[in-house]
């Protein structure tokens, strides 16, 4: 039950994009078509879970143990970038179908601040966080990102055929839409 609460909380209540404003570049950048959005969403879920699976023990056992926790940001950036490269190599070698679906978006994720943000949030209160809850939070955050970007892309596709005032066409109406979505998600704050 506790893990379900973390999952739902990360997905809807503390949504990484709409509540914490992380990963906005790719959120606005690629949400004009549905196909890349699904691939990007899946890739973010995979990379977020894998990065927390590595960074959490790295922080707990290496950085805390050696009393060099102040390098967490730079260490995590490098670890995430390495992990993305390694994941790309494995997918390239073993599954061409999977590579086409989500591998081509992996290089874009190496610079996605949402992945780094989730990794840093998980070690922020390391004394009260266990490994499984950190992984659940990462999974929920990734799923929240994927859910929001898919919904947002669907809305933007409909807006393309809507009668939008000229001054608001393109990015302005996308910003207004994202703002309204964030307001709607604020209504879920009392869910858990």
């Amino acid at each position, binding site marked *: 039950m506790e893990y379900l609460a973390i999952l739902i909380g990360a997905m809807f209540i503390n949504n990484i994009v709409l509540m914490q404003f992380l990963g906005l570049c790719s959120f606005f950048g690629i949400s004009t078509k549905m196909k890349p959005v699904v691939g990007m969403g899946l890739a973010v879920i995979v990379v977020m879970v894998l990065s927390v699976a590595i960074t959490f023990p790295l922080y707990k056992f290496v950085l805390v143990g050696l009393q060099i926790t102040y390098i967490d940001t730079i260490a995590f950036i490098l670890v995430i970038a390495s992990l993305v490269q*390694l994941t790309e190599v494995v997918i390239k070698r073993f599954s061409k179908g999977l*590579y086409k679906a989500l591998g081509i978006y992996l290089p874009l994720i190496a610079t996605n601040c949402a992945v780094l943000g989730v990794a840093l949030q998980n070690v922020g209160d390391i004394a009260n966080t266990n490994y499984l809850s950190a992984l659940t939070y990462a999974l929920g955050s990734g799923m929240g990102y994927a859910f929001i970007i898919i919904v947002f892309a669907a809305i933007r596709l409909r807006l393309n055929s809507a009668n939008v005032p000229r001054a608001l066409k393109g990015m302005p109406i996308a910003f207004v839409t994202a703002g309204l979505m964030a307001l709607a998600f604020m209504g879920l704050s009392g869910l858990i």
Partner: protein
Amino acid sequence: MEQFLILLSVLGVIILIYVGTMYLNDKTEIPEECREAYLEAQGCKSCSAFRKDSSSCGFKDALKIMEDKQ
């Protein structure tokens, strides 16, 4: 001094891992049937922030836009 050496060695190891994976990734070729999709996904034109009047979304273009505005 000891703390500084520990810091340097930890960062060194992580940087080495990064360089190693980057090298490995460069060596691994993109599957032929995915090449087009890969280039399309990485290209500036796939981003909705891409401006039609500029050649790319690179740093030089951003500087040029800023200069034009001034």
